[in-house]
């Protein structure tokens, strides 16, 4: 009712600032420790990094304070901490890899620039999307944009095949992975589509084997979604993204319709897709073999074996920053950055990182739970689950829980498009959170007068 209402939600921006500064301290501490571990001296350009990180962190914090004052207070510090850890690790791997061969590319500077671009994108989303419900009006636009983005790498002129996966586009000096942007567009599309169709999907249709099957015409777009994800698998050789899109789709469908049958249907369809991939593509079989028995063919599975040795080398407490040898693993800075962190920070550090990921997911689900409109709920679930599935696929692949697929650990791994789009995802979540926790606008209530309303005749 009023500002003094005891139920007015606390903004907790102060707590956010403190945590943000702690996250900056972690990033800077990691950077200094890398310098001490590798060269025995504090890097001379530390002050530049400190200045830059504080600028970026406080900038992001002020953007939240200004444009989303009621947003969740821990999401921003959590992802800043991950980003700082990633930067320190990429810098450390640059030093290690260039010690082996000075011609190898350094990624840390580029990653710092991409982080700044990401925070600018974060601020831009907060400024431009003042109400997430507006996005619902662009449901099909986003769906088309997502398909367009996914098809871009297949266009001969700009598409680029790197390491057997055709998921990059190159425009002049910039290469971009449109799949990352497509992920956000698809989450918006699924949320907008399912919030309208969920009743039809859940209620109209026949019941078969205890599963409520929807009508064919409602099922059409869903099968389309499945076909798209299989299409990515076939044409782009990108196992990770196809798994991610399909998992995202099944989860949002399940949440929207509240029918567990979808999980069964999704699992069956996934099994069909996986079997198809296994029989049709050689590289899928290679991944399966590397998963089940990597040591049977050490030459072929050198990467995962190296990562496993690295994790074992790290042990419980790790080697310490700059003291292990994670640079020996191919792609230690992107796909295998979790293994690199595990080697240098040990199980203790890796658990903290996974816990931070877990907290990000928990906050995302809490935002979706408390959100009042159906679209925001589904969008929150979609964004959060895409994040969670991605972390699961990466961490599971690196630790040999599931077959390895090429996805990047959000915020940690080197990769410009990944970091920018993940910042945009966090901005969207904060926007929903701000809408949810904001107190209801003041309305003037017409009270019945105490006295009889008198009309003198």
């Amino acid at each position, binding site marked *: 009712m009023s500002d003094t209402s005891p139920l007015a939600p606390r903004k907790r921006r102060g707590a956010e600032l403190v945590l943000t500064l702690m996250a900056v301290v*972690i990033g800077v501490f990691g950077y200094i420790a890398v310098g001490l571990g590798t060269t025995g001296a504090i890097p001379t350009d530390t002050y530049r990094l400190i200045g830059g990180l504080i600028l970026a962190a406080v900038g992001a914090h002020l953007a939240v304070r200004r444009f989303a004052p009621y947003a969740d207070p821990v999401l921003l510090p959590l992802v800043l901490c991950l980003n700082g850890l990633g930067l320190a690790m990429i810098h450390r791997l640059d030093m290690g890899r260039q010690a082996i061969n000075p011609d190898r590319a350094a990624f840390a500077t580029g990653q710092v620039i991409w982080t700044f671009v990401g925070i600018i994108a974060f601020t831009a989303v907060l400024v431009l999307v003042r109400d997430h419900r507006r996005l619902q009006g662009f449901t099909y636009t986003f769906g088309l944009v997502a398909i367009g983005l996914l098809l871009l790498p297949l266009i001969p002129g700009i598409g680029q095949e790197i390491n057997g996966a055709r998921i990059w586009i190159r425009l002049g000096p910039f290469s971009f992975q449109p799949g990352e942007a497509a992920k956000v567009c698809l989450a918006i599309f699924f949320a907008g589509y399912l919030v309208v169709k969920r009743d039809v999907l859940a209620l109209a249709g026949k019941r078969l084997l205890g599963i409520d099957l929807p009508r064919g015409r409602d099922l059409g777009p869903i099968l389309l979604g499945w076909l798209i994800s299989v299409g990515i698998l076939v044409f782009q050789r990108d196992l990770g993204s196809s798994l991610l899109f399909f998992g995202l789709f099944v989860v949002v469908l399940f949440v929207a319709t509240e029918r567990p049958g979808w999980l069964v249907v999704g699992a069956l369809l996934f099994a069909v897709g996986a079997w198809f991939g296994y029989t049709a593509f050689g590289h899928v079989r290679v991944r399966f073999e590397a998963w089940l028995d990597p040591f049977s063919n050490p030459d072929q599975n050198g990467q995962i074996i190296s990562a496993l040795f690295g994790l074992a080398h790290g042990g419980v407490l790790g080697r310490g920053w700059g003291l292990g040898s994670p640079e020996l693993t191919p792609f230690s800075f992107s796909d295998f950055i979790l293994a690199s962190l595990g080697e240098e920070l040990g199980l203790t550090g890796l658990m903290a990182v996974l816990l931070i990921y877990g907290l990000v997911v928990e906050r995302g689900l809490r935002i979706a739970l408390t959100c009042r409109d159906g679209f925001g709920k589904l969008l929150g679930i979609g964004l959060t689950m895409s994040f969670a599935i991605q972390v699961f696929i990466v961490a599971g692949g690196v630790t040999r829980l599931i077959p390895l697929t090429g996805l990047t650990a959000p915020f940690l791994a080197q990769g410009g498009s990944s970091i920018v789009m993940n910042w945009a995802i966090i901005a969207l979540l904060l926007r929903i959170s701000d809408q949810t926790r904001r107190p209801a606008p003041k309305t003037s209530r017409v009270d019945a007068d105490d006295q009889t309303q008198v009309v003198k005749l």
Partner: protein
Amino acid sequence: MSELTLTLIKFGFLAVLWIFVLSAVSVIRTDIFGTRVPTRPVAKAAKAGKTPTPATPKKKAPKKRGLRGRPSVLQIVEGPNAGQSVPLGDEPLLLGRGTDAAIRLNDDYVSTRHARFASNGEQWFVEDLGSTNGTYIGSQRITSPVPVPIGTQVRLGKTIVELRK
């Protein structure tokens, strides 16, 4: 750089990392359970929302008393005719400024035929007869016959009446 320093840095970093994680968790904890609702102001607010007039609490207590026995008089509590009373029989009772009213209320804000009190043998009801300014029980303007227990104040214009034993 000595082995000891590097080990200390290693432990220090892990400690800082975990302190960060735990303080994030503690912020979430206070975020979930921290919106403690003070009971007193809320109870007050709820009361104020439901019953904006002080008349209603008065009503509640006599209501129980009213369950025993039947009312015998209609007493005018407030208004220009305060103090007057009419004995209650079986007949309906008309209140208003008109000449056919049981009590001629000398109140400018009361209609000629304002309200009627009637009994079904067990209970007394009050019914508004389309008055200009309405008949109120508490803050509620009545639109249909409403049972009136003993001691409930009924307001017509500036006049307040109640049933008494």
